């Protein structure tokens, strides 16, 4: 058996939350290993060519991929405290002996033993069922963004976007920027789910947003050549005539679900929270789960925004460093919570707070 690799703090996922957790803990003196499935760190951030909302503390007005660069620079400035290993996936956790297993690339397999772990595994895209939704040409919004904004490949000529949440709205905008015609955004709800200003900016480019509409069928023989869309009534029942729209892409932006397999394996106490978009671990204010050596941060703790994911990452990293016996500044902890409270003070935040209320514990039994 190969030797087991050891680290003080293991951060699983090198997205917004994971990078902030790593930077914060390393800043306090911890030796950190970040394991990231993708070929490069940054998570969702690297695909975000638009400017982010938020406040200065969360780099508002900065494009997402630039924020990833800023976080990586911060980590670099901490010397060799943080070891980021890309193209590596944590495939399992074995509570009996506290070992994580890692696949590097396709064939290298090894084990990691960590004193503490921050699990910032992000989220997975949802799909909705409709006839032929497995035809080539039906994409998730994340795939479209990766093709366009990471690899510079235009995914098609004409698209129907499904979902008018922030992701559907902003990916429509990015498609328009890439010269792809957005035939329409269809949204089942009677109003857009994303920020109004995001919707306004695609509307004025002539992109229709059809509320109370959905996709019922993808057409095409071997590849997609059209979408059939139809109106919905207020009980989400199909009404009106189905309308066929010629297009070569259907892009699904119908929501995200927290990625939580490792929490289940670890035996963390979990609960289904609709406002947080799926099963999430219980946590205390330090983002510690019911497994005392494990913390959660970012979309894995409930779908929110990168701004909140970054602050949660800071909190988790801070607290994991303290648990490692390192000296941390308690003032920072309060400051981070003040920031989170500010971010969650709006309309969208109400829902998030209601969700968090169901899984936040005041403290774990020692």
């Amino acid at each position, binding site marked *: 058996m190969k030797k087991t690799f050891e680290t003080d703090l293991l951060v699983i996922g090198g997205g917004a939350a994971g990078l902030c957790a790593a930077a914060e803990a390393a800043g306090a003196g911890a030796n950190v290993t970040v394991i990231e499935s993708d070929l490069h760190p940054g998570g969702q951030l690297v695909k975000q060519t638009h400017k982010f909302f938020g406040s200065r503390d969360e780099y*508002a007005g900065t494009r997402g991929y630039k924020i990833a660069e800023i976080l990586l620079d911060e980590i670099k400035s901490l010397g060799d405290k943080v070891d980021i290993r890309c193209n590596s996936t944590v495939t399992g956790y074995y509570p009996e002996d506290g070992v994580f297993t890692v696949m590097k690339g396709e064939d290298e397999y090894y084990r990691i033993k960590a004193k503490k772990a921050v699990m910032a595994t992000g989220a997975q895209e949802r799909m909705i069922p409709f006839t032929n939704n497995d035809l080539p040409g039906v994409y998730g919004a994340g795939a479209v963004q990766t093709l366009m904004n990471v690899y510079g490949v235009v995914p098609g000529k004409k698209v129907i976007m499904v979902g008018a949440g922030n992701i559907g709205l902003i990916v429509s905008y990015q498609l328009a920027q890439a010269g792809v015609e957005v035939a329409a955004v269809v949204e089942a709800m009677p109003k857009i789910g994303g920020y*109004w200003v995001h919707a306004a900016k695609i509307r*004025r480019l002539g992109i229709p947003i059809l509320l109370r509409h959905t996709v019922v069928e993808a057409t095409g023989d071997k590849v997609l050549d059209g979408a059939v869309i139809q109106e919905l009534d207020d009980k989400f029942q199909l009404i009106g005539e189905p309308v066929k729209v010629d297009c070569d892409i259907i892009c699904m932006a119908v929501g995200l679900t927290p990625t939580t397999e490792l929490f289940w394996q670890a035996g963390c106490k979990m609960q289904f929270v609709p406002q947080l978009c799926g099963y999430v671990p219980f946590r205390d204010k330090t983002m510690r789960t019911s497994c005392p050596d494990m913390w959660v941060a970012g979309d894995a703790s409930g779908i929110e925004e990168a701004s909140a994911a970054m602050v949660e990452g800071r909190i988790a990293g801070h607290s994991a460093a303290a648990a490692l016996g390192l000296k941390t500044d308690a003032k920072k902890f309060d400051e981070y919570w003040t920031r989170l409270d500010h971010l969650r003070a709006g309309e969208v935040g109400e829902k998030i707070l209601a969700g968090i209320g169901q899984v936040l514990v005041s403290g774990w039994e020692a």
Partner: protein
Amino acid sequence: MGCSCNCLDKEKLFNSGILVEHSTGAVLPPKEAWEKKKGGYAVIECPKRIPCNPCYTSCPTGAVLPFADINDTPEIDYEKCTGCGICVSRCPGLACFVIDLTYSDDKAVIKLPYELIPLPQKGALVKCLDRTGKEAACGEVIAVTEPSKDRTYVVSVVIPKALADDIRAIKVVC
């Protein structure tokens, strides 16, 4: 496209991202002062509360009033607004514009944010679009700047003054 909805329904339009009336966070400058103000005033269209404040933190003169809460909608002190257009280039929602009504008797200038290709050149004629993307007029580009050097350009376009409250985007026709 075969949309069977009643598209004249104001609430429905607003719920899909079209400003149908000016309200908190999306007000027009006071008419009399605006008509005389060389350089124009900021016109912001951000009517919903969202956690965002670069319009306030980037305004060099303090014309965007302080946000008590980051979710507040922007409010402008027109006495302080110079029409500089910094907010136009900084707002991540592309919701800030500057409109100068003093250009000529019947023409105004709108400074709008632009992040598409091709980038228009000074002197180009462009199609001016309303809030639904409909072509409302043809306009001449008189300046293209990149105030924050971050690829959000600010394009100044001469438009019919009567359409100052309609035109909010441009389309470059080659």
